[in-house]
């Protein structure tokens, strides 16, 4: 099926919506937090370590070979992540952006009479 062509009017309002979203305090905050996280090597390494240890513990749990010290290591990394202000500020800022998008989607959906985000969702089932 050919991809639908968007009318100039629709494209103009999409542009207006995205520009205003990006200029909202919530998104400025989110993008600044994201930039700080992306440029913070210590935080990046901590997140990589968390991901690596989580994957290892998950695999060990599946195989029934997980050891207590591995779980303890994972808990320690999780605590370090929670104490890392760059990561936690990013998490909070992203949640703020998500909340704003949900609020905006509620407004759009109320006007349309259908949930726009559900229609826009790509099927993964």
């Amino acid at each position, binding site marked *: 099926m050919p991809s639908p062509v968007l009318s100039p009017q629709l494209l103009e309002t999409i542009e*207006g919506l995205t*520009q*205003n979203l990006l200029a909202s305090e919530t998104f400025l905050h989110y993008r600044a937090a994201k930039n700080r996280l992306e440029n913070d090597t210590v935080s990046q390494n901590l997140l990589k370590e968390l991901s690596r240890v989580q994957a290892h513990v998950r695999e060990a749990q599946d195989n029934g070979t997980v050891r207590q010290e591995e779980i303890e290591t994972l808990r320690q990394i999780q605590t370090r992540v929670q104490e890392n202000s760059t990561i936690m500020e990013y998490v909070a800022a992203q949640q703020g952006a998500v909340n704003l*998008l949900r609020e905006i989607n509620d407004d*759009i959906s109320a006007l*349309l009479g259908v949930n726009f985000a559900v229609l*826009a969702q790509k099927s993964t089932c």
Partner: protein
Amino acid sequence: MYTDNINSLEVAPLSVVKQAARDFAVALAETPQFKAFEEASLHFYKDAEAQQALQAYQRKLQSLRMMFMLNAVSPEEQSELERLHEEFLAYPSAKAYLQAQTDLVALCQVVGDLLSEQIGLNYAAACGASCCG
């Protein structure tokens, strides 16, 4: 200082963002795909026989849900379910509704992709949308 950086930029107030969202919703409602969907929905929901056919199909599907999970649906039950589905799709109002829905979803997915690309967040996923109900 981060706060100073934000203050030096032109910040869009929430009311302006919400107005932009309303403008977008109005433009989307004006598209041929949305208008066709509204019209097809109206006809479909007014078609009592098509609604009954849909309910019969949904009841059968619901009754077999557990058997599907266990992969234990008999060929007879599968055939009966397919028959009810075909019976439902034979109604022109149902067929038109599903086609209009498909066309609208295709449009909204393109719009959603564009929004996601520009804002750097997956719009539909952020809004908690799921195709799995």
